């Protein structure tokens, strides 16, 4: 799985560089998220701009990251969601769980006052 990971002062942005996030590759995203938590990075932004398809496994990995961030007093935000991907969040009502931003810049801006 291709991931682009960039650390900013207030959060780490993980950009998924794959058209599909499914049961085949989502365990790799889970590992990458856990590595950030292990490195004491509690605020993560997952950029889904390149993702055109997500299944329940992909959703499950994001829920797992969301819960993990919360237990570390951090946040896991989502951004740049394509309409088809957003429709899956709406179908499973997970759009009410996550904070979803139009761009990674907006997500980063929302965390600018976060004290690390």
């Amino acid at each position, binding site marked *: 799985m291709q991931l682009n990971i960039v650390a900013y002062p207030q959060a780490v942005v993980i950009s998924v560089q794959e058209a599909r996030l499914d049961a085949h590759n989502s365990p790799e995203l889970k590992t990458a998220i856990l590595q950030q938590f292990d490195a004491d990075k509690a605020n993560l932004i997952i950029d889904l701009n390149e993702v055109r398809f997500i299944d329940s496994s992909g959703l*499950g990995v994001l829920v797992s990251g969301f819960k993990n961030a919360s237990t570390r007093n951090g946040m896991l935000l989502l951004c740049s969601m394509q309409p088809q991907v957003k429709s*899956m969040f709406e179908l499973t009502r997970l759009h009410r769980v996550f904070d979803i931003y139009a761009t990674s810049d907006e997500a980063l801006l929302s965390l600018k006052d976060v004290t690390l």
Partner: protein
Amino acid sequence: MLEKIHINIKVPNETCYLGLIGKIGEDLAHTLARSAVNREVLGYELNTVLTEAMANVIFHANRSDPTRSIEITLSVEGNRIIIKIYDEGHGFEAANRALAAPCTPDDLSERGRGIFIIRSLMDSVTYRRMNGKHVLEMIKTFH
């Protein structure tokens, strides 16, 4: 004329084929002759249910055993799409229980949304024994 298509596929029990099978479902939607069908939406839905159902078979019925295989048939009969996924594995009772009571998607569980998604996108979903195998049948009617 009544549109009739039948596609038979057999792939190894591995997740690397999820994208291929999903794409075949998506492409099938794009070939439908009926002009009123939203092919983009239908294609995405078929991609989704095929991915979810196949992953379910790989991990549960076939217990991630790469020596097993999965048989899939995709049929179009008039305004109905019929998908059948065959397995020779275990977990028949558990699969039927999950079909009867899909999870509430509001909760923060990390698993269990697959069946809910399939049921939401298809008109009919059944899982039964047939000729010594198990078959998950999903039907969608389009207009």
